[in-house]
């Protein structure tokens, strides 16, 4: 008991010292928010699954966040971490032990209280190969992960239930991203009895501790969420009911929004209608714009000639007219000059990258021994606007003598070509561009620019592998102390600057998110372009017309 008390005190002290973890979640409630009301949101595609261990598309991501909770979360509409199911946490000085103290009285939708056993069960489940979780790899730093992943153990040795309200994590290496990992959907807490009851169909019968519970799921038609009256976060959620209607073409959804039939067309404004909407002041007023943790880029296969020559890659960087490409997508992006997007910590505002300079690009190409250019292939996804963007890139390359033929293929085929070392000389990442899993600079490195991703079937389509940078990345991520986060971010900025000197990518743009809503929707704008609860923070939005 004494130890328990001590850890709490230590955690609070740490929290106060660092100015984090002490913010009580209750403080974030909007005083203008009205309670009650129902909304209708639409999607084109079916919702695949609502199992937090499995769901990994931008459609179910925010829905799962409203049905389930994790130990950590973010301040609504921001990338600022805060404890969620945890009341407080403590990090050991060596950065390898994280101890979380749980909230009391948090109940699952089935009425049972959530305890530390559920936290452990949920992590054992997500890492168990039988679960086939796409997120299992996020937990690689927990002790015992390798045994579970290899099927040699059923339980993570590094996760210990100290008492019903305390859970301790021991890591095999210091991991600065661990608090983020405790906030991603894959670590959300599920009740064992419900998982066992529904088996592989748990994703269709989700039971969590979240602000909403699932009331109805009619396959191919609608999913209905209703307010969880026992939600531990008093005063949330504001809405009584959310109906997600699926199978609605974006253009049809927009027509329905204009007629006042729906509130949130979640596939966004169709490109063909964007100008029309934005030139009408009444409609434009209901569009919220925000940054995303996204970068669109061109990869150059650094193991294939002539892209094995850094001068050729730099020349490509200088040949791309980013402003024109952004025009193709109606100005729905900002030009990028580095891998990280502007809303990500460690983004270097002072970094200027490669200027658009055709003459210099040609000179570089000549220096590399290709004064007349060369023939190559540019892979791109075959859905609009990507073929059009690929054509613009093709023209830009032609201006410096590079003749690129476009291979416009289905997403899966482009991914397959990128994961094959001899598959694709150049890829335009549109439609598959990296969107961060959590707001931390390391998340833009490992799989897409680090050596670990430069493997067959990997996502490092440049096949860029710089062992020095891998070592630096590991060093940066071992700085766990949040007080030293600035130092850590500086290291990451340097890593990305060094990557840009090697130019495995030509960063093109960072997409902006545009969410359109009905006039009755209330709440701060950033709740509609939430960088983490992508795109909508359902727990905190409300409707203005309830009595």
């Amino acid at each position, binding site marked *: 008991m004494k130890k328990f008390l001590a850890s709490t005190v230590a955690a609070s002290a740490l929290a106060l010292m660092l100015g984090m973890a002490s913010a009580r979640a209750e403080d974030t409630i909007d005083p203008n928010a009205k309670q009650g009301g129902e909304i209708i949101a639409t999607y084109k595609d079916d919702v695949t699954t609502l199992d937090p261990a499995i769901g990994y598309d931008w459609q179910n991501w925010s829905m799962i966040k409203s049905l389930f909770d994790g130990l950590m979360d973010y301040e609504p509409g921001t990338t600022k971490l805060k404890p969620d199911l945890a009341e407080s946490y403590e990090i050991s000085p060596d950065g390898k032990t994280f101890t979380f103290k749980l909230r009391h009285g948090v109940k699952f939708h089935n009425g049972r209280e959530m305890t530390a056993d559920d936290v452990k069960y949920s992590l054992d489940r997500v890492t168990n190969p039988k679960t086939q979780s796409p997120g299992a790899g996020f937990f690689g730093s927990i002790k015992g992960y390798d045994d579970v992943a290899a099927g040699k153990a059923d339980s993570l040795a590094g996760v210990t239930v100290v008492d019903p309200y305390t859970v301790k994590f021991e890591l095999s290496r210091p991991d600065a991203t661990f608090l983020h990992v405790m906030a991603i959907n894959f670590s959300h807490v599920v009740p064992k009895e419900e998982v066992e009851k529904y088996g592989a169909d748990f994703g269709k019968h989700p039971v969590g501790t979240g602000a909403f519970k699932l009331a109805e799921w009619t*396959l191919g038609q609608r999913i209905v969420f209703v307010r969880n009256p026992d939600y531990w976060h008093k005063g949330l959620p504001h809405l009584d009911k959310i109906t997600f209607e699926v199978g609605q073409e974006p253009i049809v959804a927009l027509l329905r929004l204009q007629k006042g039939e729906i509130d949130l067309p979640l596939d966004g404004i169709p490109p063909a209608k964007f100008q029309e909407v934005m030139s009408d002041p009444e409609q434009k007023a209901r569009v919220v714009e925000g940054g995303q943790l996204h970068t669109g880029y061109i990869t150059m296969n650094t193991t294939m000639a002539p892209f094995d020559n850094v001068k050729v890659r730099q020349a490509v960087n200088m040949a791309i007219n980013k402003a024109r490409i952004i025009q193709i997508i109606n100005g729905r992006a900002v030009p990028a000059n580095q891998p990280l997007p502007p809303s990500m910590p460690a983004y270097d505002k002072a970094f200027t990258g490669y200027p658009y300079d055709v003459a210099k690009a040609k000179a570089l190409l000549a220096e590399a021994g290709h004064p007349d250019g060369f023939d190559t292939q540019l892979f791109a996804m075959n859905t609009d606007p990507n073929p059009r963007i690929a054509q613009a890139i093709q023209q830009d390359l032609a201006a410096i003598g590079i003749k690129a033929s476009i291979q416009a293929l289905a997403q899966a085929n482009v991914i397959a*070509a990128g994961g094959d070392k001899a598959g694709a000389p150049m890829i335009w990442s549109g439609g598959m561009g990296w969107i961060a899993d959590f707001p931390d600079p390391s998340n833009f490195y490992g799989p897409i620019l680090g050596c670990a991703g430069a493997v067959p079937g990997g996502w490092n389509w440049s096949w860029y592998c710089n062992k020095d940078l891998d070592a630096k990345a590991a060093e940066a991520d071992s700085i766990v102390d949040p007080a030293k986060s600035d130092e850590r971010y500086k290291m990451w900025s340097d890593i990305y600057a060094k990557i840009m000197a090697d130019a495995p990518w030509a960063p093109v743009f960072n997409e902006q998110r545009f969410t359109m809503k009905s006039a009755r929707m209330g709440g701060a704008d950033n709740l509609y372009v939430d960088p983490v609860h992508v795109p909508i923070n359902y727990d905190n939005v409300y409707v203005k017309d309830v009595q």
Partner: protein
Amino acid sequence: MIAYLGRRLIQSLLILLGVSLITFALLYLLPADPVRQIAGRSATPQTVENIRQQLGLDQPFIVQYWRYLTKLISGDLGRSYIQRSEVTELIVSRLPASLLLMVGAILCELLIGLSMGLIAAVKRGTAIDQTLMVASFVGVSAPQFVVGLLLLYVFAVRLSWFPIGGYGTWRHLVLPSLTMGILGAGWYARMMRSSMIDVLRQDYVRTARAKGLARGTIIFRHALPNAILPVIAMIGIDIGIFMGGIVVVESVFGWPGIGQLAWQAIQRVDIPIIMGVTLVSAFAIVLGNLLADIIAPFIDPRIKLR
């Protein structure tokens, strides 16, 4: 008759087997790895291999196909890779909507097509005939995506006669049925016209006319029943065209049928669903053709089943 049926059933089964083999082989040869789709972009190579093993996708083609077939015989279409639900459940939950749309579309095409064909045949050679035939040509060639959006814009958005997409009441059914029906109506108008012209040339019609019967009586009581039957027998063969059409029309109108399911599955390389929907469609087409052939002799005694 029994022997004929038996032979046709065996033929149908062989066709279905062939469809399953070809589709399975094409999906196997696809240069896209379904396991990477399931595992997502953050998966470690180990996760990917684990999933590959569990799904049996590390096995050679023949083993995979045999496994699929043996499960298929017990009615198990497998589990969706992406949605993780039973494919049978996904298809069964969506089939009624597609069948309803099909019925609506058949009604529309018969109603529009047969009346157009009838009028054109009776008014043969006049401006009305020519106008109707041009209209039927437009109907046949207009892309369903465009027709659907046009109908939606005019009748739902502008006039508010019908809801803007969705499912549930008869009002929801009208526009998608019409969109699907317009295509078939073009064909039926042409078939009905030529069939009616043939019948109107027959001796018994001439006799009826010579007896001094009223024009309406001749057309509706004597000529129409004979002209319409061969056309109706074509419905069974239409099912193939419908199966293609529902993919587009269901997307436009947000109609929760198997067409939408197929479209989403193709985009996500969700092989079990693609297989399932393909087999169900092939089954429907085979069944439709079989029924059309079986009822043909009842409609036209000159046709014999052999």
